[in-house]
């Protein structure tokens, strides 16, 4: 198979408007990935599927990843004048990496038996702009997996034929796979008529004996 750089240059020639970036992978055995902007994600995926040299006809795995806002700290040396003498002082510089939701596609070719090409797309933020193009029209195998990401992460896939919750029940609120999700204290509790009966029954019981505590 071609290297990721070759694929990237061919993609850029075919789709000049696409913003493509190769992401490094610190794990040597793992694959690097192509980060594509959401607007041209569909066109890039279509190119990868239909290109005669790649023929990535099999979308194996679709995954969501949650990246919350993160404060990155960096130590930099700054020159400062202290008591009339110029000195180098270390300062901690804080930058905020804005959070996003990421969707990862692992693409293989069944015809040519090669792969994977890892394709990633990121949403603008984690709150209100969580739209990404659905690749289900290209690979139907992504249908349930995209529904699952919508269910557990809250990514909205535009162009998905049937975007509903799949593992959680309808009417569930929140996205449980997000890193900042907090489960309610007690899922099992629901008020029942039984509670009222118990409350009423308490009146009939003798009062609890007071125990005197000796000092």
């Amino acid at each position: 198979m071609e290297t990721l750089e070759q694929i990237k240059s061919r993609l850029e020639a075919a789709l000049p408007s696409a913003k493509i970036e190769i992401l490094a992978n610190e794990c040597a055995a793992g694959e690097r990935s192509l980060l594509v902007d959401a607007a041209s994600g569909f066109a890039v995926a279509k190119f990868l599927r239909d290109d005669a040299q790649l023929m990535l006809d099999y979308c194996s795995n679709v995954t969501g990843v949650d990246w919350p806002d993160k404060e990155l700290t960096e130590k930099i040396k700054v020159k400062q004048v202290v008591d009339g003498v110029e000195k180098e002082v270390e300062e901690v510089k804080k930058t905020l990496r804005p959070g996003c939701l990421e969707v990862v596609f692992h693409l293989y070719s069944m015809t040519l038996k090669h792969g994977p090409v890892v394709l990633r797309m990121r949403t603008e933020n984690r709150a209100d702009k969580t739209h990404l193009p659905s690749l289900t029209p290209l690979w139907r195998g992504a249908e349930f997996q995209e529904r699952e990401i919508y269910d557990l992460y809250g990514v909205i896939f535009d162009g998905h034929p049937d975007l509903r919750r799949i593992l959680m029940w309808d009417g569930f609120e929140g996205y449980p796979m997000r890193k900042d999700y907090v489960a309610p204290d007690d899922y099992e509790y629901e008020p029942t008529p039984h509670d009222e009966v118990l409350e009423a029954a308490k009146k009939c019981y003798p009062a609890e004996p007071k125990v005197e505590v000796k000092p």
Partner: protein
Amino acid sequence: MLSGRAESGGEAVIAAQKPFEVTPKLDESGTPIGELLEISMGPHHPSTHGVFRMDVTLDGETVVKLKPVFGYLHRNHEKIGENISYLATMPYTDRLDYFCSMTNNWAYALTIEKLAGLAVPERAEYIRVIMAELTRLQNHTSLIGFFVQDMGALGTPMMYAFREREKILDLFEEVSGARMMCNYMRFGGVRVDVSDAWLAQTKKIVGDYGKFLDEFEVFLNENEILLARTQGVAPISKEQAINASITGPLLRAAGVNYDLRKVDKYGIYSRFEFKVPLGETGDLYDRYMVRVLEMRESIKILNQALAGIPAGPIMDAKAKLRGFRPKAGEVYGRIESPKGELGFYVISDGGPSPYRYRIRPPSYINLTTLEDMCLGRKVADVIVILGSVDIVLGEVDR
């Protein structure tokens, strides 16, 4: 009007195959005569192989719409995996596809080995192959038992299948301590060594397995009811199967030669001689037959592995189980489990538990085209079609 899959984006979706045209009887004004009946098959239905529901709309006995409903066994396995250590996830993987805990263990161990760069000793590789192929044997055997039971052959064939399965589960129990929840593999090897007596016993059981299959095939292959219920039912084309990410015996029944044991050659599969059985049309009979032939190939692999297993250590000396913190990075590892491509995707941030832990469950994704296969068929066929997909709800719902 009644088609299950409505317009979907307009792009080149491979058209749903409909074995028969659905033609509800209409009156002059074009409205269907009689009512469409909407029924809920499952979640507690003996043929759904667990708690699985299908919302089926029927025109008489004919299926006009079918929507699978998941989640009854959902416990957010992936979230649990992200909050516990790498090693603690291993026993949880047993519960995914509880028929094939050995292959689940292997897929997870393989992924983490790739992430941390661990080697696996020769003997452990052989043991893994033996365990995986025994798993394939017992999974396919019991599946065929269930499959014919779904067609109405109550009891007898399934008991025959379970008798054989039990022999293999006894082998698992002897070596790992548990029949089904084996928790047997570790990053960089396996947990317990197998004894010579165990190997001899395995050889005997594998040697006898061919006879059992002969018997099974005599009873089933040309059985009139099996032929009538499976031949030509719910075929899938090659293109449709690939596009819908179908893997495993289902894919090979459609005629696509894609077996990860041959494609990825993970472990030591490149050393063994075996063939990949392929079907022609992808109908239920092909799916049945591919599984039977796969068992024959598994026996071949087992015989080679049992003959060639060397002595030596079973764990990589560098492997560290407690306080295991792989370097940052991400990997996707996959193996050919009996149900299809079982993949694990792990992102590590250098901490004691994975940042992201994801499973690619084969039987969940194989259900994508369930509706297409069932449209236009009778209700009784739905049960057999679902049986042929081979699902385990522990894996589907996770």
